[in-house]
């Protein structure tokens, strides 16, 4: 299939034969879509409602419409519980990992997208294979390694393991994305006597800024969401990331659902906002190179 991936908004000739059978089908498809949207959005709605409801009222004949809204859970989250610390930990770990992967990954992606050399296909295959291997299979040596380096419960002790999935992901997505940038300008520069270094820094890099942003967002999201390594390689609340902190929330007598859901809302909001703003780019980044006709 040679047809390039294009966005078809408005491009598709939609034929609407006016037969009752087709209209009935359209209604059915529409109803299914609405049901699917309700299924998708309901958990968010319900979490927000519950995070604004007192614990005593949570499981007593729940009503779909909020009754009295209270902000106690959010207040408790930042006063009694110090939810700032896990947020800071997550930002530091995910941010550092992303930046490091972008710097190293850009060099690799440039070579893989623009330079012809033997072994390239093997490298791509290797990188793809690494993105797929199960994290649990390297927990034990990483634990022993970090323990012997006294890096358990430290930032580097999380950033290093995070590279195992972030680096291949970054290189893979970035390579796919750079390949879609037309080569013409670089070739023209070459003809005019520009060195490879010049054509990389002066021409490709500026053009690749959107690709870098997309890849950075994806890598950051993967790091922000990571759970297994963060659970295995931290000991206490001081270095726990957001997912670990939320998963291990404990109350004195019962599960503090109100606070858990408030924390879930706080942890989700930035990611959700990023997705809504950058949805088109994220979709492109996710599918670039993943599907080949």
């Amino acid at each position, binding site marked *: 299939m040679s*047809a390039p991936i294009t966005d*078809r*908004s*408005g491009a*598709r000739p939609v034929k609407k034969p006016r037969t009752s059978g087709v209209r009935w089908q359209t209604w059915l498809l529409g109803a*299914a*879509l609405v049901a699917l949207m309700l299924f*998708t959005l309901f*958990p968010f709605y*319900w*979490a927000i409602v519950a995070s604004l409801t007192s614990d005593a009222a949570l*499981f007593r004949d*729940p009503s779909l419409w909020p009754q009295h809204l209270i902000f106690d859970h959010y207040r408790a989250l930042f006063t009694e519980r110090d939810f700032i610390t896990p947020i800071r930990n997550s930002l530091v770990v995910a941010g550092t990992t992303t930046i490091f992967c972008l710097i190293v*990954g850009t*060099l*690799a992606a440039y*070579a*893989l997208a623009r*330079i012809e*050399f033997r072994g390239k296909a093997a490298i*791509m*295959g290797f990188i*793809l*294979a*690494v993105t*797929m*291997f*199960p*994290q*649990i*299979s*390297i*927990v*034990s*040596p*990483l*634990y022993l390694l970090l323990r012997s380096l006294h890096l358990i419960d430290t930032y580097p002790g999380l950033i*290093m393991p995070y590279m*195992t999935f972030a680096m*291949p992901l970054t290189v893979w997505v970035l390579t796919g994305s750079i*390949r879609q940038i037309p080569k013409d300008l670089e070739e023209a520069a070459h003809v005019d006597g520009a060195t490879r270094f010049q054509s990389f820094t002066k021409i490709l890099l500026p053009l690749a800024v959107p690709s870098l942003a997309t890849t950075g967002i994806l890598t950051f*999201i993967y790091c922000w*969401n990571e*759970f297994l390594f963060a659970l295995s390689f931290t000991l206490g609340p001081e270095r726990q990331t957001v*997912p*670990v902190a*939320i*998963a291990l929330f404990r109350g004195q007598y019962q599960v503090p*659902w109100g606070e858990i859901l408030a924390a*879930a809302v706080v942890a*989700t909001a930035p*990611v*959700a906002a990023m997705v809504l703003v950058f949805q088109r780019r*994220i*979709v492109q980044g*996710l*599918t670039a*190179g993943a*599907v*080949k006709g």
Partner: protein
Amino acid sequence: MKKISRLGHQARLGWTLVAPALSVIALIAIFPLGWTFWESLHLHELRMPWLGKPFIGLANYIEIAKDPRFWAALGHTAFFTVVSISLELVIGLYLALVMNRVFRGRGFVRAAVLVPWAIPTVVAALLWRFIFESQGGIANALLVRAGILKEPMVWFIEASTAWVPVILSDVWKTTPFVALLLLAGLQNIDLSLYEAAAVDGANAWWQLRHITLPLLKPAILVTLIFRTLDGFRVFDLIYVLTGGGPGTSTEPVALYTFNALLQNLRFGYGSALSVVIFAITFGLAMFYVRGLGVKLGGEE
């Protein structure tokens, strides 16, 4: 002669640029993988340091073969993977077909389905656990009000019902990803095929079966491979939703391995379990690539 040296220069430059990324991956992913294997050939109980770390050959693997909890966990993992992926493929295909059409609110639909994919799995699991938690929870309330349940039930007390929120939350979280991969495949299909079929009077169902599905096969297989491997390493979702319970009746292999390693500190045995998981996923990937002829992107 000059050409060869130019090519040699290219190759040197290429490898030099790739080297940092490759060495990071080799150092922190591949080297530990070898270490896991080495560790798996030893008796290494961190709880009992006086035992030392004697070499015991394949004894850990023999123990695995006789370990009913491992086989049960493998069964749970396979069950979870097959059921959730089947649902995700069907719903994802539907969503992709819908998103490939032009309609008002398409952008909204695409954004809405992306959010569950982007949030932490831990959070997704907690949202669904809260929905099914306690007899006074919202799932019970809605099902009783709709007349589907006679009285509220305790979902997490039995394996058969505990799987419902587990699978539901996985479908909720990963169907968007499936839909997007399939959508990318759909957009590769030449539209003139449909036009020709429509001229010949073929209906939508015929077009789906004879044009869309055959041409979408590569995308479906790629999706299948990604999701199967994801399914086999499921951890976060079940850790938070059921903790593997009641008892160990929903425990997947990754959770069993985690418990062997970091709860019981049995590093030799846990490493052997890790190697087995790696071997299974590797085997599955090979089966897809060789057996089903999946072509993964990367070549121009």
